[in-house]
């Protein structure tokens, strides 16, 4: 086998070392840095884009949160205004009702006092009529005239007995 012919061992090893060393030098000086540069640039670009996307997403989330907060605040405010308006109208209503109630009460009282006066007056006339009637009935039945004072006394006694 030509592989075990020692004639060329020195040459083989010499050129291997030379060529390999040259290739190694070229690789570390020229080739590898170029590949690394391209790979680093790409990964940095991708990382940068990802970072930017994450930042934008955060901003969007913050904006959404602010929007939600504003919406909630506005809702609260609307509720407060509604409640205040409701309370105001309720107060107005209560006031009017009170006024109306007072007026009605006043009118009722007036009417009642008028009715009372009328009744008293009527009751008084009932007594006079009763006295006259008693005088007249007694005179007709017995033929004797009854004094007005006597008749009044009898009528009063009857009225008293009946609770008037």
């Amino acid at each position, binding site marked *: 086998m*030509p592989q075990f012919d020692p*004639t060329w061992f020195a*040459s083989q090893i*010499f050129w*291997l070392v030379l060529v390999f060393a040259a*290739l190694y030098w070229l*690789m570390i000086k020229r080739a590898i840095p*170029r*590949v690394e540069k391209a790979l680093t640039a*790409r990964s940095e670009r991708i990382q940068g884009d990802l970072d930017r996307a994450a930042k934008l997403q955060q901003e969007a989330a913050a904006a959404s949160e602010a929007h939600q907060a504003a919406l909630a605040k506005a809702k609260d405010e609307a509720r407060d205004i509604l409640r205040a308006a409701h309370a105001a109208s309720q107060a107005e209503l209560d006031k009017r009702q009170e006024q109306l109630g007072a007026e009605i009460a006043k009118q009722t009282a007036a009417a009642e006092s008028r009715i009372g006066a009328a009744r008293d007056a009527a009751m008084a006339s009932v007594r006079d009529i009763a006295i006259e009637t008693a005088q007249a009935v007694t005179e007709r039945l017995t033929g004797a005239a009854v004094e007005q004072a006597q008749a009044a006394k009898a009528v009063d006694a009857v009225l008293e007995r009946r609770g008037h």
Partner: protein
Amino acid sequence: MADKDAAAGGHGGGGLDPLHQFQIHSILDINIGGYDVSFTNSSLWMVIAAAIGYLLIRQGAGAGALVPTRMQLIAETLYMTVANMVRDNVGDAGRKYFPFIFTLFMFLLVGNLVGMVPGSFTFTSHIAVTFALASVIFIAITVIGLVKHGLKFFTLFFPHGAPLATAPILIPIELISYLSRPVSLSVRLFANMMVGHTLLKVIASFAIMLGVVGGIAPLALLVGITALEFLVAALQAYVFTILTCIYLHDALHLH
């Protein structure tokens, strides 16, 4: 019949000799200090392989485009393959050895692949070349381990946690297995490349000897084996490199 003889005779002395392809011949005689360091066909193909390997990476990455061009993708894929190999097998401590391992991989890969070109010379099929490479790697890794761990490096020859009584058996075994690393590393590559190329040549000879009609079967076989040889060429470069990574890992981390 006449054709066959003519074909066989046409190649002169080496005609159908399957080992002729491994013959080294000087292109430029050089003699330094009594040593014959002539520039040979082997040297020529080393230079060609190194040049292709270098230009593939250098020109490929040349564009440095954000979206890689086809050549750039090849260069970057090769780079990433070796970078991942070093990271997975050696760890972060292996980063500074990456340029050497990458150079080794490219040199062997392109060396093996240019050897597939008809009429070329496969320098990786020479034990002198593979053994020299493996020896340098073996010595360098041993020195790296000794520098990093001092005398603790020798615990590499005694598996951690094994009973002390097994030391007389284990230490010689581990020592022999360690010392046989450069041999197995170099013989694996050399033998694979040599056997593959010899086989191709033998089958090609059959195709020529059997003529136009009978030669079809060996020719079909030859096509299949050629495809297999491309696989072996890439695989052996990978195996050589990954074993270097594993040995480096052993030296750096002691199991």
